[in-house]
């Protein structure tokens, strides 16, 4: 194909797309059962969390293996705000974003000086270390954790409106708003600055970009989004405890980011759905073709790991870019 037919997508088109996704979620929430609603809410949480990693790694070029810890900070902040200050739920979410951003700014100022393996090591140590603090201080609730209650659905929605459907609504709405804001941000001056720094630090500096400031800002924003994801996660499971934020969570978020294509925000749904759907599919497969219980419990991990390796081999830039590079040439 000689001529590249470049489609012009404006912000209006994107807005319509977001509204359509919102409508789809609304219709889905009316048809699915409670368990599916819970899974839908989980997908929405993963979308936000994975977007924060894509922003940091794909756009600003910094590595984080410790986003689970940032989610934990957001979740604990939301819960503590509710328990000790008795503020409305939405303020708890705002507090979670603010506190986590602040922490992200601190961490980012250290991270801006680090590169590659050093940054990976630091964030990994954070992911292992931070959740265990909860066992040291009693107000954090130890191993049982503390509760976080996002409230019951308003009575005007009727009796049949389930709790999980409500969570599905809240998380999806939050995810849509966050994603709208993130995609605008990435198209703004800041997003371009981050990509310039990622592509070539020297050239970016010559163009007048303050490298450290740009990196710290990216870390701060990413942490804020992760904090939101953490608060949403806490809302869906009604509880915040160290066991909700194991190292495995950080690893699966990184996995989700790679499956989504770490350089493009557009694929974020792929990773989020994959993280939720794979265990489901795996247990179906195991039930159908194998009676063995060990296979059923091991299959999800195996599929995720194998998919990860396949993605890195076959579509290192992510499924979406792979698709485009094949069809738009």
């Amino acid at each position, binding site marked *: 194909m000689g001529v590249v037919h470049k489609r012009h997508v404006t912000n209006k088109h994107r807005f319509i797309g977001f509204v359509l996704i919102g409508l789809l979620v609304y219709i889905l929430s009316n048809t699915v059962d409670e368990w599916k609603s819970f899974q839908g809410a989980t997908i929405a949480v993963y979308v936000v969390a994975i977007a924060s990693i894509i922003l940091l*790694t794909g756009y600003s*070029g910094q*590595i984080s*293996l410790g986003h689970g810890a940032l989610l934990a900070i957001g979740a604990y902040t939301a819960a503590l705000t509710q328990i000790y200050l008795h503020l409305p739920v939405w303020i708890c979410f705002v507090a979670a974003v603010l506190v986590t951003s602040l922490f992200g700014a601190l961490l980012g100022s*250290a991270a801006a*000086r*680090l*590169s*590659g*393996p*050093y940054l*990976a*090591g*630091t964030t*990994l*140590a*954070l992911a*292992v*270390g*931070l959740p*265990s*603090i909860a*066992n*040291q201080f009693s107000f954090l609730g130890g191993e049982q954790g503390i509760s976080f209650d996002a409230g019951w659905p308003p009575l005007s929605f009727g009796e049949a409106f389930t709790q999980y459907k409500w969570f599905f609504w809240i998380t999806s709405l939050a995810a849509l708003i966050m994603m709208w804001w993130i995609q605008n941000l990435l198209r703004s001056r800041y997003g371009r600055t981050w990509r310039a720094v990622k592509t070539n630090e020297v050239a970016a500096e010559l163009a007048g970009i303050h490298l450290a400031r740009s990196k710290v800002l990216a870390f701060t924003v990413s942490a804020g989004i992760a904090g939101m994801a953490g608060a949403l996660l806490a809302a869906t499971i009604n509880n915040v405890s160290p066991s909700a934020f194991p*190292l495995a969570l950080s*690893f699966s978020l*990184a*996995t989700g980011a*790679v499956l989504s294509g*770490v350089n493009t925000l557009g694929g974020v749904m792929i990773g989020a759905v994959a993280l939720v759907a794979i265990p489901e599919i795996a247990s179906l497969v195991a039930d159908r073709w194998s009676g063995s219980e*060990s*296979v059923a419990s*091991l299959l999800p*991990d*195996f599929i*995720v*790991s*194998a998919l*990860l*390796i396949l993605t*890195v*081999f076959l579509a*290192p830039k992510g499924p979406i870019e792979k698709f485009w590079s094949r069809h738009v040439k």
Partner: protein
Amino acid sequence: MFELINTLLIGITAGSIYSLMAISIVLVWRSTRVVNFAAGGLALASSFVGAAILEKTGSFWIALPLAMVAGAIFSAFIEYFFLRPLLKRSGDQGAEIFLPIIATLGLLGIIKTILNYIYGDRIGALPPPLPDKGFVVSGESIALSPMRLLILGIVLLLMISLTLIFQRTNLGLSLRASSFAPEISRLAGIRVDFIRTVGWAISGAAGATAGILQTTNGSGSVSPESFEFSLLLVFGFVAAVIGGIESLVGAVLGGLTLGIILAIILMYVGGSLVFIAAFLILILVLLLRPQGIIGAKGGRRA
């Protein structure tokens, strides 16, 4: 006083095991610029091999070297069939280290599920081959036992032989040259690809030793979901980063620093702060020296 000395002894033993794991990670990083999380899985797999051989032969002294050989073979296998094609495909993308990290994470997952499938709930026993009861000094039992002495001895022996290999042999020279300047080494007639595989093999052997020593020093048994091995991997990596990830001496210093400080915190502050302390140590060291204790700023070291 006794308490402090005991804490230090415990810290040095644990730290020397972290050092071995750190060496395993450093060797891979130097030869292929990959942060190898699969090292934890390889150590786990080799420890299972060690446990199986110990069960068959009953001798720790046969099990340990054979497990090291197994670790070397596993590691070389992974480099040859997995990492090499991966790096060839993705090309040399400079600072792009995220994808290889993720790939080795995937490998770690696969190794674990395979071990889980084979062993399930069964565990491999690796009891201490020597008495673990501390020597008695002036009426009090100190933390230095024959077993701990053996661990320190093995680690020391490995480090000396690694240093000799790297400083005194042609192989060591090739290893250093091909990590310092692969292109020039290739022109000078060094088979860089083969040398890289050798680097991975040595790394696998070091990891296997770390795994077996960690098990004998700890619970004495190894299971696929072992917490000890997650610790070993994380602390080994942290130790490598503290030491500057390029340098073997740095890895040893990093491991010992980490081991001693964590032992002190475990003894005097509280168990649940150990992990966050590892993070704080790491970030303190890196704020003072962003390239680690021994790392060089910019450029590779031979």
